[in-house]
């Protein structure tokens, strides 16, 4: 019980984030990683201003042979590649792609994993039905007949969701295109579009299967995750992105027609999200399963908070710390997966530069132009390293007990 004692000076109270920042500052390498990541984001945002050349411009005049495979010089800081393009500019624009793919894939995965994890954890063992409005069975308000209303409501609901998803996907495509074209703010549209379109699809799934028929989301989700984890994911990523990007197929044609050169970027993000949300969902589900038994949840329920309020105002803030750490590591993972896929030829396609496909091209000239290897290789390594150190520092700062 708090005893009133105004004469005693109270210790200065600190928020969680202030405490975390104090702990984070002690981890020098994580601090360096944070600076590096901020620089990288700045480079990604301002690449059109910083880059001395157009990353896709090839020399068309003069002595062409001497303009290919140039060693680093004052004009071309990192030399030129096999088509005479400036490697430094391509690295800068590559940073743009890496950051866009990494952050977008991680944030969309975070969003999906968080929602599914909370729902699965909170409603575990207690199938839920939201469908209890005026149109529910046994309700007295059925002016046009129950079946007809039901059909109409479904059509309206799914029609609306489809419309939203379609609009958002187009928006995402426009955003990525604008981003690639060097316009400002494109990444926000891309992110917003992806979140909304994926959210609409997800809402349709949850509504249709769980809220309507009262399935136990946790059972379905856990089985699904167990199943996914037994399949080797990299080959599956390859198969999926081959399916989506093949220009002969229906999906590929549609993607090429609606998105143009941005297609490979959006496809890679989608493929990464398909596997990326799983770790977040597992994390949140596990945490919520134990949190929901605690007294503060019972108290909130006893005070009459709605389920949604309990989930998002009471449970969610308690999983913020592990979520922040997980998402940071997830950005690094997404960049890693993207560069692997691009290296294998299933990711970002030429002429859009990404560090993965630059490295893949450079390997073809291992003997004749080894200097092309260093810039993309070192950038991939440093970036993954920075996100790992950042995640490590955040874990020390936010979750000191979990230290192994």
């Amino acid at each position, binding site marked *: 019980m708090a005893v009133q004692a105004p004469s005693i000076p109270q210790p200065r109270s600190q928020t969680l984030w202030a405490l975390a920042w104090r702990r984070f500052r002690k981890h020098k390498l994580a601090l360096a990683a944070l600076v590096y990541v901020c620089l990288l984001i700045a480079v990604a945002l301002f690449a059109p201003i910083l880059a001395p050349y157009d990353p896709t411009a090839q020399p068309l005049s003069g002595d062409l042979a001497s303009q290919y495979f140039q060693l680093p010089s004052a004009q071309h800081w990192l030399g030129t590649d096999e088509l005479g393009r400036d490697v430094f500019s391509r690295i800068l624009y590559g940073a743009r792609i890496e950051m866009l793919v990494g952050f977008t894939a991680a944030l969309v995965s975070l969003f999906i994993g968080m929602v599914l994890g909370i729902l699965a954890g909170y409603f575990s063992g207690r199938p839920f039905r939201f469908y209890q409005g005026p149109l529910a069975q046994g309700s007295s308000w059925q002016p046009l007949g129950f079946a007809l209303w039901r059909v109409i409501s479904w059509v309206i609901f799914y029609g609306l969701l489809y419309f939203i998803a379609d609009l958002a996907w187009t928006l995402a495509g426009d955003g990525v295109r604008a981003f690639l074209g060097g316009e400002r703010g494109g990444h926000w549209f891309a992110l917003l579009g992806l979140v909304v379109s994926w959210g609409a699809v997800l809402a349709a799934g949850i509504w249709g299967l769980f809220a309507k028929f009262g399935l136990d989301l946790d059972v379905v989700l856990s089985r699904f995750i167990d199943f996914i984890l037994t399949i080797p994911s990299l080959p599956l990523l390859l198969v999926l992105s081959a399916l989506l990007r093949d220009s002969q197929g229906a999906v590929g044609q549609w993607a090429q027609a609606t998105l143009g050169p941005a297609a490979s970027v959006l496809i890679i993000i989608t493929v990464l999200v398909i596997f990326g949300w799983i770790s977040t969902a597992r994390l949140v589900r596990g945490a919520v399963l134990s949190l929901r038994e605690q007294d503060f949840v019972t108290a909130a329920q006893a005070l009459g908070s709605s389920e949604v309020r309990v989930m998002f105002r009471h449970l969610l803030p308690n999983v913020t710390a592990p979520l922040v750490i997980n998402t940071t590591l997830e950005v690094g993972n997404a960049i890693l997966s993207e560069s692997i896929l691009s290296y294998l030829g299933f990711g970002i396609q030429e002429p859009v530069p990404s560090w993965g496909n630059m490295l893949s091209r450079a390997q073809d000239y291992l003997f004749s132009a080894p200097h092309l290897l260093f810039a993309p*290789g070192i950038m991939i390594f440093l970036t993954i390293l920075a996100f790992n150190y950042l995640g490590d520092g955040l874990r020390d700062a936010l979750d000191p007990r979990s230290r192994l």
Partner: protein
Amino acid sequence: MFAYTVRRLLQIIPLMFAASIVIFTLLALQPGDPTDELRQANPRITQEQLEALRHAYGLDQPIYIRYFKWLGRALQGDFGQSRQYAVPAAQKVFGERLPNTLILSGSAFLLALCVAIPVGIFSAVRQYSLADNIVTTLTFLGFSVPVFVLGIFLLYTFAVWLPDKIPGFPAFPPVAEVPYTPFSEVRSGTTSFWIFLRNWAWNLVLPVVALSLIQMASWTRFMRGSMLEVLNLDFVRTARSKGLSERTILYKHALRNALIPIVTLVGLSIPGVLAGAVVTESVFSYQGMGRLILDSLISKDYNVAMAALAMLALITAIFNLVADLLYAVVDPRIRYS
């Protein structure tokens, strides 16, 4: 324990069933079929001939019927014909490439274990010493090098740079296009067994090092952490106060307990090793299953891709089971029922 093993083995069946449905559907949805290539190769082929071919391949049927036909034949060991190599897909995958992949990932696995466990113990025993700090930093670096970046730089260093700088430096094969002298030459007597073995090992060095590094780093980190945790427990203090030698305490009391979480981790990282093998094989053009999956996806050789992917899923499922069983062997407190 026996009943548990049998039950888990039986659970693999529905799992493989579901996995094969997913993989088959994804592959069947891939655009383009083998008749496309025939049409490109021979522009005068008629529509009727194409239809007849599609009928002969069974491509005119719906996906689920094709799946059950495939399943029926696959259960009898017939995975169809490889269109790219003109041999049965089963022979290509199981006879030729699977052993190569198992050798590569198995060697990398052993190398990682042989380095990680001693180094982890050493680092834990000398916590916060200079050596420990170096090990910890190195593991963090190793953990962050993507396997293909490491592979390319190893190639550059040992196949291009060093042979260039140091005359007489034995160049590692930059591209293992023919991975080693085929064993048939040994059988026919043209090559001695030792030369075969030497070529073979020589080709394996760089891929194995590249593949093992990430696992090596993460296992060392875990081994160190797990050992440190155990060394702080009461029973270790009891053992010390009994006057046991440090050696007995470390290897007989602490190590066995510290190994328990490592066994799970090692089991769980087997899919990671296999996925890494896919990438490593492409970097070094090593003729294994991962390379085969990539090639067959590019050339639309779906019988081979299906057989290889199903095999990879089965290996993953089996090793997950092995990890769980090993867990019980290492930790006698665990009883499965």
